[in-house]
């Protein structure tokens, strides 16, 4: 005979949240920040091919921390959603807020109904155009969506890194300064992260439709000085 034990909803949620947080804390963090005139995303990532940051659409980028297989599937779904929305309607109808909402709903569903919650945290970044503002949407493992005003930190060590980054930046800076501050915040006082261990991507207008760019190690070294 099987025995069923009563577990209170509070306890269930607490257990699931703890499980997800532990999974996310195992990975390295990501800092995303708005600079003048674009959006910067920096991940500590020793792998040059297993990316955490990706292009989604003309002016939308994705970043994920936690379990690679889980956030990579979300990344792929995001690209598919964006490309098919743009194909069905128009390129200008692809909106980061709609995508962030879908991610939030999916993560929320998985948190309450899934076998286990997804051990990921997602960022959807959008570069401004004539009708839409620059945005950083952070979606947590349980589906909480937050609209971060100037910068966002994802990952286990987010609070410490957030404090360090906030201290160094009180207004919009250039790409080089913002990158410098982001890397310093990721590394902390006792560590130096080299360009080879960084994944750096930007959204910036360069006169063409697509604004996403993955910066090479040499470019990152050059920017870091």
């Amino acid at each position, binding site marked *: 005979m099987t025995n069923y034990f009563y577990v209170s909803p509070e306890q269930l949620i607490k257990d699931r949240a703890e499980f997800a947080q532990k999974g996310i804390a195992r990975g390295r963090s990501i800092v995303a920040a708005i600079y003048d005139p674009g959006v910067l995303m920096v991940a500590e990532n020793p792998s040059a091919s297993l*990316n955490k940051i990706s292009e989604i659409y003309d002016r939308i980028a994705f970043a994920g921390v936690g379990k690679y297989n889980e956030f990579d*599937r979300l990344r792929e*779904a995001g*690209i*598919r959603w964006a*490309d*098919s929305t*743009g194909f069905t309607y128009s390129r200008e109808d692809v909106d980061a807020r709609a995508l962030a909402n*879908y991610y939030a*709903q999916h993560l929320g569903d998985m948190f309450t109904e899934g076998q286990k919650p997804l051990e990921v945290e997602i960022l959807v970044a959008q570069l401004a155009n004539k009708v839409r503002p620059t945005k950083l949407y952070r979606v947590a493992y349980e589906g909480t969506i937050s609209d971060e005003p100037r910068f966002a930190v994802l990952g286990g060590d987010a609070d410490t890194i957030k404090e360090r980054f906030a201290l160094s930046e009180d207004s919009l800076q250039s790409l080089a300064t913002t990158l410098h501050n982001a890397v310093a915040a990721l590394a902390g006082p006792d560590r130096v992260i080299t360009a080879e261990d960084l994944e750096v991507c930007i959204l910036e207008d360069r006169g063409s439709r697509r604004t996403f760019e993955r910066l090479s190690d040499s470019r990152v070294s050059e920017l870091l000085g």
Partner: protein
Amino acid sequence: MGLPLFSAHGDPGPSFWHFAQMSGFDPVPREYPHETPHATTVIAVRYVGGVVMVGDRQATGNYIASRDVRKIERADRYTGLAISGSAARGIELLKFAQLSFEHYEKMTDSSLSLEGKANYLSPIIQRNNLSSPLGVLPLLAGWDESNLQGRIFEYDGAGGCYERLDFATIGSGSPFADGTLRLGFRDNLDREEALELGALALYEAGDNDPSTGGPDFVREIFPMMVTLNDEGFQELPSAEVGERFRAINVRRTESRGVAGGSLR
């Protein structure tokens, strides 16, 4: 549409076409009842260091439907795609190809090879042409980044994809363009020679085929001329193309409408 998530065994991968089929918004039609405008002559000529593409601008149904259609489009940085046949299906194919190549690039963080892009279109053309009277025949040309050369791929009505090492033509004006190219093509053409030969071949097609639009000096609408080389897809400015066709026109006026015994 909700978030398109798939399990590992049902995942359509980086192919946008397979994804579109699974998601039920298949862009390939089942049947169409009416005739629509047909697009007309496009030429691709290989030269040392790349490919030149030239295309006319006229869409023709029972009358001239449009005089400034763009039949050659940039499919991605190093690839040009041209269309002939049904304008509606052709433009849809262009849009779909552009989207698919970019989709693959974003999904995998690497670009498709030129041959991969050419092969990808085969089953799409096959499905379209065997299921609808609105046939479409594209022409794909580009700079092959791995083999460092310009390459041309043409298709037959059933979607068969064939590489051409010299030149290719599509559309109703192709017999006339083809004749000119066959007389003028050499293995070692340079960019300028290929542009001149391509322009001449298009002029011939425009001169002989009623549904190919030649240079339109009244409206200042000239054929599209594109080069594809290690610098990617580059369209020649309309003024430069206009000069080229004006020069051909002057020569032809002197010899009263015929080439005058040589390729000119």
